[in-house]
């Protein structure tokens, strides 16, 4: 940046330069927190074994140890590639990921025959697969950190990423149902027994594109406006992009039958728009458009059916799950019963019956966890999400370029919205939609995409906290200035010790 100009322009200054307070990288704090998080994961699996078997086997620590080695590796990569990155992010994410792996393993144990339980293999079952996915995801995050040396480089590929994102969103909608539909939502690409959810990666690509587009257009979008009722509203023709994204997310809702993903894309765009322009009117317009769209989809589902029927069904279940508790409302009713029987402190890790909830390893993992760790435990997990989001927003606030601000702010908000959509869904605050719980749910696509998200946020926070000209500058000018001073025998009082 400006470092090459510094030595040339800065004149002789051998005296007391502004003393640089040692900017702490805080990597040791990160390491200590990481140790704590992994100790918690080990304690979690020990408690599970104690509750389920009345004894602790010798290998309870193995998954935690595998994860520790993995995260230690990531920590070392961060030390090398992003030394000023935020210290709280990796430990918080690692804890969620570790608890997810522990809980999935606990589900495997509950379903395994009694004889195999005591020495259940590490990489077996859903928990084992999640452990393997974690391995791949963390390596991917490290690769992102190594390749993307400066987050502004991402903006160079903005249009490519935007196009790629749209293609990824559209693939499942266009594929035949047999290749893309799981549980009524067409969000997948299936290859035999293996399936990926391209939308998870699309959200990262689309966000990078939104950020780039809005940095370019922010002046038009925020300056030209009309004032109605004390709120600045944009001109009609500037509404184009937001209407386009709204239409795309409605198409997702109709053809992929997934309210969560469509809410996620639309909310992501509106919030990036809001961060770019600081106009509350965009939030109002966005909320009106979304609720209008969702409500008319509901009405259409009631009268026409067809592509809207799925959404209408879900809304009906949400309004009254107990009207049909054994069939359509079964999932949600079991989830609510699980949360309710957990109460304040829960049945203890391993003490509940989470296997009664359908899809507990995936969408309903928060309900399953809630039964065992109770409201106190769940709120701790929610606060950990909150801290991760806060660190992302903080990085966005502190970074020095607009693209980085929009990128970090948008990514942090996306994570928050995803947690809101799924936790709101399982606790019947909003209609349930098939979103994964970031870092907890079983599923490789979600885990990989969210770890990549964290890698980008780490990269932005490194740029935000890195002091200007950390190493270079002033040294060459200092020596060239002190040499003439000695030659000419300049008065010594100029140079202060």
């Amino acid at each position, binding site marked *: 940046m400006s470092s090459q100009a510094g030595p040339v322009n800065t004149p002789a200054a051998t005296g007391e330069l502004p*003393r640089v307070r040692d900017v702490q990288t805080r990597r040791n704090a990160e390491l200590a927190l990481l140790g704590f998080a992994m100790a918690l994961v080990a304690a979690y699996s020990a408690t599970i074994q104690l509750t389920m078997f009345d004894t602790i086997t010798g290998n309870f620590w193995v998954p935690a140890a595998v994860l520790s080695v993995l995260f230690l590796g990531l920590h070392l990569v961060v030390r090398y590639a992003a030394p000023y990155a935020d210290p709280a992010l990796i430990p918080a994410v690692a804890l969620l990921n570790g608890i997810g792996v522990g809980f999935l393993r606990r589900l495997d144990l509950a379903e395994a025959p009694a004889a195999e339980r005591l020495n259940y293999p590490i990489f077996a079952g859903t928990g084992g697969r999640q452990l393997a996915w974690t391995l791949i995801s963390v390596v991917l995050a490290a690769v992102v950190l190594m390749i993307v040396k400066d987050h502004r480089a991402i903006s160079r590929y903005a249009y490519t990423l935007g196009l790629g994102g749209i293609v990824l969103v559209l693939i499942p909608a266009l594929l035949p149902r047999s290749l893309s539909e799981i549980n009524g939502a067409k969000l997948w690409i299936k290859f035999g027994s293996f399936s990926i959810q391209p939308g998870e990666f699309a959200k990262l690509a689309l966000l990078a594109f939104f950020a780039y587009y809005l940095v370019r257009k922010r002046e038009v979008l925020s300056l030209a406006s009309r004032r109605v009722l004390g709120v600045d509203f944009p001109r009609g023709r500037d509404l184009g992009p937001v209407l386009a994204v709204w239409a795309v997310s409605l198409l997702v809702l109709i053809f992929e039958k997934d309210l969560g993903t469509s809410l996620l894309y639309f909310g992501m765009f509106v919030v990036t728009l809001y961060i770019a322009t600081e106009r509350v009117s965009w939030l109002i317009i966005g909320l009106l458009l979304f609720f209008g769209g969702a409500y008319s989809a509901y009405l259409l589902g009631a009268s026409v059916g067809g592509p809207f029927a799925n959404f209408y069904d879900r809304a009906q279940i949400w309004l009254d799950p107990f009207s049909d508790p054994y069939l359509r409302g079964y999932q949600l009713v079991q989830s609510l019963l699980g949360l309710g029987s957990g109460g304040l402190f*829960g049945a*203890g890790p391993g003490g509940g019956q989470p296997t009664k909830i359908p899809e507990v390893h995936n969408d309903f993992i928060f309900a399953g966890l809630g039964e065992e760790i109770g409201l106190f435990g769940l709120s701790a997990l929610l606060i950990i999400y909150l801290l991760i989001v806060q660190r992302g927003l903080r990085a966005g606030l502190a970074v020095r370029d607009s693209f980085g601000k929009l990128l970090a702010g948008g990514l942090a908000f996306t994570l928050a919205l995803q947690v809101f959509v799924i936790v709101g869904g399982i606790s019947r605050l909003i209609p349930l939609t098939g979103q994964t719980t970031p870092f907890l749910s079983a599923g490789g696509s979600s885990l990989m995409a969210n770890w990549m998200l964290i890698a980008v946020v780490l990269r932005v926070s490194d740029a935000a906290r890195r002091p200007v000209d950390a190493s270079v500058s002033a040294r060459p000018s200092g020596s060239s200035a002190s040499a003439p001073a000695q030659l000419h025998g300049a008065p010594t009082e100029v140079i202060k010790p």
Partner: protein
Amino acid sequence: MAGDFVVEVARIGFIILLWIFVFTVVGVIRRDLFAGARSSRLVAAPRGVGASTGQQRPAKVKRGRAAHQLVVTAGQLAGTRITLGDGQITIGRAEDSTLVITDDYASARHARLVPRSGQWFVEDLGSTNGTYLDRAKVTGPTPVPLGVPIRIGRTSLELRP
């Protein structure tokens, strides 16, 4: 019975440990959360008041009072802070500036901040709309006291300890 007791302790202990972890994380990021607020309220204001005396004797800046941060207090980048090193800070719309401001009244290379003998100097780089130190237009290199706003278009910057 003893087994039940151990299970109970483990159950509650895990939740307590979870919360201790939450508070430890908050403790680690606490400094970052409150650093800005504290320095702006308690430290910067009094020094900005006594700044006129410091202006004549810029060399006498004491070690503890040297500027360590450049904070954007108004404009689109408000809230941004740059930790000062010993290199100069360039400000403008150009992408390679240290602080890239997207202010309609800013030039591509608007101004720069240069450290000399422990004092930071602001220098206008021939901008169209000018750089102001508090109310006065900056013509040559001018020493910048702590807490006094440098105004560029709608953006305000301050040095903070």
